[in-house]
């Protein structure tokens, strides 16, 4: 039987009296790639940000392997539940310094071989000593992915990681992510507004509408529904 990597129980978030995520409950099994789709402003990113406690749910619980995330120290939780954002947000310096950033926070200094191995996984072998301001958008997003993987997370949250890239680059990064998730057996929640992308990469799809979970199921079942407005 597949184990549950991450689950939410009736989570809700209110900001200034507005409910932006309403009573959402779902679970993600180990090694699954769950795409979260829905129109702009429907609460996809807000939902994702509650899973590693970048934002706090107003009510409800998030469970990581059965443990309430509120019982885990935020630093430790965010190491275990990594996040790749819409933009790369690399820190000034070299690619290697960015890759080492996460492990350094808990006193581990990755050696050159480990850095090179992570870069090879994102198809950037030989980029370690490059300055981050010399990277293209696609390369920067790959470094951001490798930087997250350097923490060896149990779950990876991806908030529209390809939306700031042009179509060709977006497809390349998307294929890379899907390949890595399969190869490493990662559990991944992938926010996207792109139905075609969700269909290509997801093992399951969660549809959000106006802050609520509208449907969850197999990609063909959710994405082919006639009234879907994404």
């Amino acid at each position, binding site marked *: 039987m597949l184990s549950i990597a991450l689950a939410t129980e009736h989570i809700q978030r209110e900001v200034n009296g507005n409910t932006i995520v309403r009573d959402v409950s779902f679970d993600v099994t180990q090694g699954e790639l769950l795409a979260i789709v829905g129109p702009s402003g429907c609460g996809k990113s807000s939902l994702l940000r509650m899973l590693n406690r970048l934002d706090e749910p107003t009510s409800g619980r998030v469970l990581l392997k059965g443990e309430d995330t509120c019982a885990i120290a*935020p630093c430790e939780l965010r190491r275990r539940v990594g996040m790749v954002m819409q933009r790369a947000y690399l820190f000034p310096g070299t690619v290697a310094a960015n890759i080492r950033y996460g492990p350094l926070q808990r006193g581990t200094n990755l050696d050159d071989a480990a850095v090179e191995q992570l870069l090879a996984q994102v198809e950037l072998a030989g980029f370690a000593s490059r300055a981050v301001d010399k990277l293209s958008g696609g390369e920067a997003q790959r470094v951001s992915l490798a930087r997250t993987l350097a923490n060896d997370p149990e779950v990876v949250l991806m908030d529209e990681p390809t939306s700031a890239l042009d179509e060709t680059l977006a497809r390349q990064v998307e294929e890379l992510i899907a390949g890595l998730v399969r190869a490493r057996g990662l559990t991944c929640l992938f926010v996207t507004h792109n139905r075609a992308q969700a269909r290509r990469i997801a093992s399951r799809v969660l549809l959000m509408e106006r802050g609520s979970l509208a449907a969850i199921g197999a990609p063909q079942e959710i994405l082919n529904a006639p009234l879907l407005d994404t």
Partner: protein
Amino acid sequence: MLLYWIHDRILLGVSQALFAASLALAVALFARTRGVALAGDAAIALGRGISQIILVGLILAVLLKGPWWTGPILLFAMIAAAAKTSSRRAKGFPGALRISLYAIAAGAGSTIFLMALAGVIDHSAASLVPIGSMLIANAMNANALALDRFRAELQSHSGEIESALSLGAAPAVTVAPYLRGALRASLIPPVDNLRSLGIVWIPGIMAGMILSGASPLYASIYQFVVLAMILASSGLTCIVGTHLMQRRAFSPAEQLVPELSAVES
């Protein structure tokens, strides 16, 4: 010319004020020819300025002849007013007034206390208040610069900060580069004042001491003492202010507060 014709000090002062204000108004009227409507604001500011400073002068004339404790009371009032003014720079940031009050009290207050204890500042209210006010005013400006810069840095780098948090970094680590930048920027004026001392400008306190008959050598050394105290009090104010601001920038669960975080979507 005025000194030649007028011998009464009060009348001389009023005449000098009228001359200086006329020049300022003339400049404001000239600015109008360049399309800058400054005359109205300048006239109000000049009127307000002269009224305030005369009122303060009259109050000081009474208080400075009073017992020793009038000095600390005046300085506390000045610290509160400075905190209020300074906190406007960080308007909208949670607890800006309290942060400014604690920072200026810690920076300027402790410098004044230590220097008075060591005998660098004379204990009398006549000495403590003017020198203390200089430290407080400079701490206020430095605090305003530091808070304004730090808040702007946090807002414009919220993505980088949340990325670092997402990698398991502690809040203090994520904002360290922006805190350093804000501290450096806020201390540029007092450091530059010390650097250019005597070369670019002869500050008021030195000029005043020489005019009132003090030894020019002692006046110049004491001017350096005052500027060094300003640097110390401004530096400490900014360190305390940005530290408190950093703590208020995050929730107990190490989340960037909504005022600084990325827009909800």
